[in-house]
Structures are given as structure tokens and as C-alpha cells.
């Protein structure tokens, strides 16, 4: 039994409390928030040390291995949406950014910018979801930071996460590696995340069963790399800007073109219907749990089979090929029988009015 009288410590009132400026001031309130909310949820040996930084021995790297570091800010609105929230998103997003280099993610850091007045109960939901996501992914959050901004100067909660990972020797994955003749693979149906978030937007709320696809993809990546060593040349998760924008980025980096087959691109009928209603194109809608892989032609079958064997790649498909094209056009044979350019998204994708 501790000799400290219980009555002297007033625990954080998570049920009714709100973030106030004191939680960011570095005093007792800040320490209490960190201890009772963040440490309790993320608990691991590094955080328990209670230092400003996490001190760890570098992983034993075989010759030719490299480190990869990725960072990402998460500002989704609304903060909670069907299938997820900003918390799990902030873990999955960064784990995936690390994994898209073909790396095994090791550690995460997290920085929170909280708005004065934000309910602690909601913050706890977010933090718990983050903790669960990090535990499931096997990637601990080993250091972090919390700041509070005045009411009206933030959007509830902003989270930035940074991830560290290791790329095994011999793995060479980069957006500039695609070559004419390579095969474009997609791990599953597109558009769920964006539509799930849109369905919750004020003024747009519509009934839907669509859930965000947010998830960590590093085990899928590991399975793909193992299936065809050296065969995967490019990996990308088509988040903001959707599949279309991601493929355009790769085409430009690789100085090549692409020819897609619309009929091969998997889209859930519900997503199709919602997009139809809003005048949006699923090709431009954000995903949080899908990846595209560009593979050497001889490796494509093995990689596709490995994807389909993994729970996150059941609906994987071969959607196109890399072409030689000095203009770096991403083109598509439409299901209807015509052909079109699949261009960069210009500006924000906005619903059409007529």
C-alpha cells in the first residue's frame, strides 16, 4: 500500500473533463494527462522511462540494410467515422508509409495538438484506438508530445506520427523503379475510406454501410516481398488523391506511362452508388488500407497469389501495365469500351452540381 493518501490525488475526470490550457503548460496537469491517458494506453518500456526522448539500441542491421523514416500529420474531419477514427488512422498511415518502402516498421512517435475544450472522453477513445492499432501492428509508440491550442485554433485533435523501419538488404522499392511492361497490381476495392468519411460530414450525412478500410499493411507487404524476391519494384498506398493520383505520381517519377483496364479495378457497389450520387469518381477517393504494387512481369503471378492469400489482399487484382510514354499519361480502357486519360486530381474533388 502506498503511504500517500488517496484523497490527495484527484484523478483525471475522463468522463466529464475537457482539455484546458493547463494540459499543455508543462505543469502538473500536463504530467497527469500524459500519465493517466497516454502512458496508460500506450504503455511500454521506453515510455515508462519518462524521458524526453526514447533511448534505444539501433537494430542489428545486416550489411546492405537501410533505415527508413516517415512522418505524417492527420487532420481528418470528422474525427470519428464508420470503421475508424483519427487515432487508428494515425498509426496505420505511418506504418503504411514505412511499409511502402518495403520496410519492417519498428517504432512510432506521436505528437498531439489538442484544442482547448475538447472532451477528455473523446480523446480517450482516440488514444485507446491508437493504442490498439499500434499493438495489433506490433509497432510501439515510444515517445511523443502534447500541446494545447486555444479554443477555435484547432479542429479538436491533430495527430502527427513518425515511424522508423528497416529495409532488408536486396529490397529496392521506389516510385522511380517502374519500367515499361511491368504489371500494376491493386490489393483490393477502392474508395471505402473516403466515402465512409464523407458520409459523416455535416450537411452531407447519408446512410451507408460502408466502413473505412483503414489498416496496417506491413504484413501484406512482407508476404509479397517474400513471394517474389526482387520482383516488386514500386509500392504505394493510394491515400489522398486516390488511385488515380498515386499512379500519376509513379508514372512521373518513373518517366513512364500506364494503361489501365477499368473493368479490372475492384469497387464495391455501395461505393459506386455513393459516388454516383455525389458526382465523384472512385478513382480519386482516398483509401487507407490498400496498396498498389508494380512488379516485374515474371513476378506478377507470384505476387498476386501471395496477396490473395493474405486477408488484406483477398480482392487483389491485376489492373494494368506500365507503358512507354514520354508524356507519362495514365490512360484507361473504360468498361464502356472507350479510352480516356486518368489525370491528376486538380484541386479538391468537389461534388458536381448538375
Amino acid at each position, binding site marked *: 500500500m502506498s503511504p500517500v493518501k488517496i484523497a490527495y490525488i484527484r484523478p483525471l475526470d475522463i468522463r466529464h473533463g475537457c482539455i484546458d490550457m493547463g494540459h499543455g503548460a508543462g505543469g502538473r496537469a500536463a504530467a497527469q494527462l500524459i500519465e493517466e491517458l497516454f502512458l496508460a494506453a500506450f504503455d511500454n518500456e521506453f515510455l515508462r522511462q519518462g524521458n524526453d526522448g526514447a533511448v534505444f539500441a539501433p537494430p542489428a542491421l545486416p550489411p546492405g540494410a537501410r533505415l527508413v523514416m516517415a512522418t505524417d500529420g492527420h487532420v481528418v474531419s470528422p474525427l470519428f467515422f464508420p470503421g475508424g477514427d483519427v487515432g487508428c488512422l494515425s498509426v496505420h498511415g505511418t506504418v503504411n508509409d514505412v511499409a511502402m518502402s518495403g520496410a519492417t516498421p519498428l517504432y512510432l512517435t506521436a505528437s498531439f495538438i489538442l484544442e482547448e475544450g475538447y472532451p477528455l472522453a473523446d480523446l480517450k477513445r482516440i488514444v485507446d484506438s491508437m493504442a490498439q492499432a499500434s499493438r495489433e501492428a506490433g509497432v510501439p509508440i515510444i515517445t511523443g508530445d502534447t500541446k494545447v491550442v486555444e479554443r477555435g485554433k484547432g479542429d479538436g485533435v491533430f495527430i502527427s506520427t513518425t515511424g522508423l523501419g528497416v529495409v532488408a538488404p536486396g529490397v529496392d522499392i521506389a516510385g522511380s523503379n517502374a519500367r515499361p511492361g511491368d504489371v500494376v497490381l491493386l490489393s483490393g476495392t477502392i474508395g471505402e475510406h473516403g466515402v465512409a468519411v464523407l458520409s459523416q460530414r455535416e450537411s452531407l450525412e447519408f446512410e451507408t454501410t460502408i466502413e473505412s478500410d483503414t489498416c496496417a499493411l506491413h504484413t501484406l507487404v512482407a508476404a509479397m516481398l517474400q513471394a517474389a524476391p526482387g520482383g516488386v519494384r514500386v509500392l504505394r498506398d493510394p491515400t489522398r488523391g486516390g488511385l488515380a493520383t498515386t499512379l500519376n505520381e509513379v508514372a512521373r517519377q518513373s518517366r513512364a506511362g500506364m494503361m489501365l483496364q477499368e473493368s479490372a479495378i475492384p469497387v464495391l457497389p455501395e461505393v459506386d452508388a455513393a459516388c454516383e450520387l455525389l458526382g465523384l469518381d472512385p478513382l480519386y477517393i482516398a483509401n487507407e488500407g490498400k496498396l498498389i504494387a508494380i512488379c516485374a512481369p515474371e513476378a506478377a503471378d507470384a505476387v498476386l497469389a501471395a496477396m490473395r492469400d493474405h486477408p488484406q489482399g483477398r480482392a487483389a487484382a491485376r489492373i494494368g501495365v506500365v507503358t512507354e510514354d514520354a508524356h507519362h499519361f495514365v490512360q484507361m480502357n473504360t468498361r464502356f469500351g*472507350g479510352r480516356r486519360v486518368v489525370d491528376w486530381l486538380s484541386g479538391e474533388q468537389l461534388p458536381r452540381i448538375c
Partner: protein
Amino acid sequence: MKYIDEFRDGDIARKIGARLAEEVQPARQYSFMEFCGGHTHAISRYGIAEMLPPNVRMVHGPGCPVCVLPIGRIDLAIKLALEFGVIVCTYGDTMRVPASNSLSLVKAKARGGDIRMVYSAADALEIARQNPEREVVFFAIGFETTTPPTALAIRDAQRAQLKNFSVLCCHVLTPSAITHILESPEVRQYGTVPIDGFVGPAHVSIVIGSQPYEHFSDEYRKPVVIAGFEPLDVMQAVLMLVRQVNEGRAEVENEFSRVVSREGNLQAQALVSEIFELRTTFEWRGLGEVPYSALKIRPSYAQFDAECRFDLRYQPVADNKACECGAILRGVKKPTDCKIFGTVCTPENPVGSCMVSSEGACAAHYSYGRFRDIPVVVESI
């Protein structure tokens, strides 16, 4: 989705394509204008131009409400937000249209204007109800399709005696624009309009019916086929137009009879004429002043007319000199004929009106069709 898939069936499309190829007369050039942005969008998105015989050319008309909005009108909306401090509500597409002084509604918002994207006129009304201490203006744009909801919002505002709601009315009319294309003074300047017929608007026609187009078939001997926005609708409409041309007919036909009648929606028409009256003239971006082509709010509803309420004066602003929009919207030139197409003028940085929304002729060609200007190596996977 079954209902929609039926109108996107590639096999049927190929059959219509084959029939078209059989029926077009090889020695003849056919060019048809699809007036409506929705059709331009379908043609681009499904790659329909590729499936038509080479001597059938589709001309993108001025039917994108965002593209035809003149700079001066957007300037008014920006002025309301930045100078009068009102909450300006508008449809999403409108936010990006370039205005004077390198501004747009998006940029005015970044400068502190309270500008909100809404999905309907009713949403704007709701914002007015929730902010009784602020002035709320709905920046209303669009063709006959979006006009009835604006009229309804004004009537509801009047019934609820809302004191802080008004509308900056920029609603325009389809038939007057088509007439203007066929007989404006510029036609002489640009040369004869090489248009053999029109694909008539879908949603607009649900409201106004097919009757207003009879004028074009009777007076101008131009066939009109009203068509839905699905790609098969468009293919079918082109086939029907080709047949009319071949047979020397000029009639209004209705491919979209599953929804469009000759009279249209009389109730909606009555509501619109209760609230609105014709403007004697209205400037269109790319077309200039078009007589009797737009609506304004009737004097009896003047308190809901932002132009009266804030004593706004319209100032026309000239388009960039290099811009060929006028010729393009009339079907006299193609987007690639414009010297600044794709270089100075791009969807990120539109100079002229046709580059503003994906339904505009230049933006549609840039975003979906520019591969056609350049030979491509690989055809399929």
C-alpha cells in the same frame, strides 16, 4: 446499381457503335453539339469520342453552369464576403472559378471571407436560420435544374419571414443560349456554325420539357435529341441524330422518355415564374451578353434579392485576350486551336472559362482526352 449498370453496358455500346459505323455516310461530316456539361462529362469519362466513327465529331457546348459564370458575377460574391462580411453559401464547383485580382471564392475564404460550400439551396437557408445575427447570401448558379430549389428556398424564407437571407441570382436559361449560338453576331465573325444537331440536356428537360426545343427544329432546321446522362443514352442519341441527318429530318426526339415529357414539370415551372422574371440581358462567360438568357428575382421578393439588398452594381470583366472560349463554345474551334491550351491555361490555372470545371470543353479535353493528340504505344494489358 443494376438500374445504372444497364445504361453502361459495354456490349450494347459496341453494338450501337457498329450500327453507327454502318449508317454514317462516309463522304459526310457530322458534328453535333452536346449542350450540357453532364453529357460532356459522360463523353469524356467513358471515352465515347473514341467509339464514334471518325467523321462524327462531338462539340462541347456552353452547358456547364460553372464555366459560363462571368468573372464579374464571382467578383460580386467575393465582395459580399470580404467587404460586407456576409456568409456566402454556394455549390462546391463554384469555389474554384477564377475571378478578378487572381482571386476565387476559395482564395477569398483563405483571406477571411466566410464562404461555405453547400449541397442545396435549402442548406443555405438552414445556415441563415442558425445565424440570425448574420447576413447570409446564397450564390445561386445553374440552369433550369437548379432554379426550382432556389425558388423554393426564397418562398420558404418569405413564409418564415427570415430577415437575414438573400440570393445572388445567376440562374441562366438553356434555350436562349442555344439560340444565341445559332444566330449571334459572332456567328458571322467566326463563320458558319458547323453544327448538324444538338444532344438536348437531360435534367434541364425534366423541368422544362421537350417543347422549348421545337423552335430549333422548326426555325433552324436543327435536329434535337434529348438524352440522359448515361453513356448509352449519349451513344443512342448520336445514332438518332445521324439518322435524322441522313433522312433530312429536323425534329425534336426524346431518347430520355423514361423521364422527360413534352410539358415538363408544370409545378416547378409555376414556382419558378412566381419568384423569378427574365433579365433583358445577361453576360455569359465566353458568349458575352445574351438577351433574355437569365433570371432575376421579381420585385415583390426584392428583400431576398442580394443585388437590391446590398445595392450591388455589376461590372463586366474582360476575359484574357488569348482565350478562344467564344469560338470553342460555338463549335467553331477545338480546344487545341487555342495557343495557350495546356501550357498557360490548365485546370490548375484556368485562364478561360472552358478550363474551369471538368465539364468545360477545354478541361474535358485536357483531363480525359489529350492522349488523342499524341500517338500511344501500348493498347491493352
